[in-house]
């Protein structure tokens, strides 16, 4: 049985990862959280010990950690875990700067621990099916992709730049960028973005339109905006991709398996997702890579390449020109 420590429940996805870990037979033995209330709640729910000091948790006999803190602390916690010889599953975006991401990769390599970035969309059966269809050349040669990762404005630390590193762009660029890289097997070489704050009274970006050029001439756009109305929209958002090939087109809507509920008390329609829990596959692959000692299926490098696009988008919007990646 693999023993796991949770390094912060700041990101809401970590509750789901912890639940999946438990279902898969891993044991969550310790929880660190700088928010004591939240940490104790998590520790109670998963029958673990609460630690106010993560160094103490890292000195226990856990084999791996889940880093679920605010984005700006991913580096500190990942590097500390690596030095303590613990494998790391880190929430996305991997970090708030390229330098931090590189340092995390280096620390995990030097200490010979696994670093996996939480891109659960890769574990969507629909996304896997599409990747296979592309590999089988169903659409012919791929020419272009149109993507969206819309969401509601999450609030909390997500809109504090010091903690999140950015708004909608850093939050919602990395998932679909990772899917594009993974499905195409190609890298982004140029990024252009229009970025603004147009939906909420925030000091951080809440909308954007990103254009990417891939190796080999494929172009793609991605709308990462927090443009779903927080109170009235029936769902949290979406992850969609449309592929244009020489033989046809394909529309992928990752969370389209849903029912619509009209309820007199809710006073709005609500969509309920009933498709597979993609976090389950993500967490299972992390545990398997530890048990079988195989390379991380979603590596720190994957996390870095997706982050690079978000960082390039911010630079592009600032100078109002396309930006070349990777950075020198």
């Amino acid at each position, binding site marked *: 049985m693999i023993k796991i420590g949770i390094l912060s429940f700041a990101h809401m996805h970590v509750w789901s990862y912890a639940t999946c870990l438990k279902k898969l037979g891993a044991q969550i033995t310790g929880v660190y959280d700088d928010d004591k209330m939240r940490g104790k709640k998590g520790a109670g729910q998963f029958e673990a010990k609460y630690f106010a000091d993560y160094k103490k948790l890292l000195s226990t006999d856990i084999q791996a950690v889940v880093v679920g803190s605010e984005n700006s602390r991913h580096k500190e916690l990942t590097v500390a875990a690596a030095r303590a010889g613990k494998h790391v599953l880190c929430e996305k975006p991997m970090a708030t700067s390229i330098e931090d991401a590189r340092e995390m990769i280096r620390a995990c390599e030097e200490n010979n621990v696994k670093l996996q970035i939480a891109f659960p969309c890769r574990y969507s059966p629909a996304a896997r099916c599409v990747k296979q269809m592309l590999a089988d050349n169903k659409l012919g040669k791929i020419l*272009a992709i149109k993507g969206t990762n819309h969401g509601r404005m999450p609030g909390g630390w997500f809109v504090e730049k010091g903690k999140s590193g950015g708004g909608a762009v850093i939050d919602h660029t990395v998932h679909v960028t990772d899917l594009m890289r993974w499905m195409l097997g190609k890298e982004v070489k140029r990024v252009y973005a229009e970025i603004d704050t147009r939906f909420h009274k925030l000091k951080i970006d809440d909308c954007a339109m990103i254009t990417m050029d891939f190796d080999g001439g494929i172009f793609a756009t991605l709308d990462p905006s927090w443009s779903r109305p927080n109170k009235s929209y029936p769902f949290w958002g979406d992850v969609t991709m449309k592929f*244009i090939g020489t033989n046809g087109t394909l529309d992928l809507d990752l969370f389209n398996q849903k029912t619509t509920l009209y309820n007199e008390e809710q006073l709005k329609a609500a969509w309920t997702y009933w498709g597979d829990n993609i976090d389950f596959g993500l967490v299972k692959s992390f545990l398997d890579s530890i048990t079988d000692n195989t390379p991380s299926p979603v590596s720190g490098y994957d996390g870095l390449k997706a982050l690079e696009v978000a960082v390039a988008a911010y630079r592009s919007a600032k100078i*109002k020109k396309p930006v070349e990646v990777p950075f020198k």
Partner: protein
Amino acid sequence: MLKVGMIGAGCIGSLHSANWQAVKGVKLATIADINSDKARTLAGKLGLRWTDDVNSVFRDKSIDIVDICLPTVFHKEYVLKAAKNKKHVFCEKPIARNMADARAMVDACKKADIKFMVGHVVRFFREFIKIKEQIESGAVGKVGVVRTSRCVGFPRFSPESTAWYSDFEKSGGVVLDLLAHDFDWLRWCFGEVERVYGRGLAHKALKEHIDYALVTLRFKSGVIAHAEGSWAEPGGLKTAVEVAGDKGLIDFKSDGAKPIHVSIKQIGSESAAVETPAAALTSHFTLELQEFADSIIENRLPTPSPEDSMKSLQVALAALESVKTGKVVRLR
């Protein structure tokens, strides 16, 4: 009663001819096409006069309005003929293939004191009118991000039309021929465009009968718009619009808004021939042509005005320039 002479009996010509007959205050008198078979067939269906001498329409004193339903590169020549012969002129979109031609057309019509309107028919689609009204009523608050989509298979109305649509210098591909509609509607809703960034396949795939483009527009008002245009989609036309604002969101998909969906059993097979007939009391083409007729009868500027059509072309050409150079194009 104003008399209309139509030039061009191709796809848009046959659509217009049926719709002119429903327009009040005008009468479709003649159909001209250099291809006499096409002119004869279309005119015959409607019981009208026809000719393969297109210039005779301009000489005909009884004709008040000329409707130019020709490929884009011929628009200038025929609109100038209309101006010279003092005939009001309706012209299919886009107004022209380049700005110089568009300007010459607008100036000539102004000088000749004739009415001139370009067929930006999306302004007459009820869904697009309704969305604009909702935006103006404040239903979504301040608009942040707008997404439009216009997808269809490659135009194959006839071998001739396939030939000119697949010639970039003639058609301009999806950006000019298809997205011109959305650019015009977006300008109508959100005003002038500041800069454009686009990607498209026109330069590498149009010859092989595929084009696809994704264009980002930044408006002076700050609105961010994303327009998708596709000639890569097998099947009928599909459009979509999403307008997200700080108080709400409007979502429209033509696929989900069909009042009739028919599935006919094929003999010896369980796969169905699917039809989704349009069901509207008045066609958007009739509304569009009625607007032009009314502008003549009431002696006022039509909507869209010639300047509007020119500015919408400017946006499309900026998008094409961005597609070609890979750079951001700022509008002057």
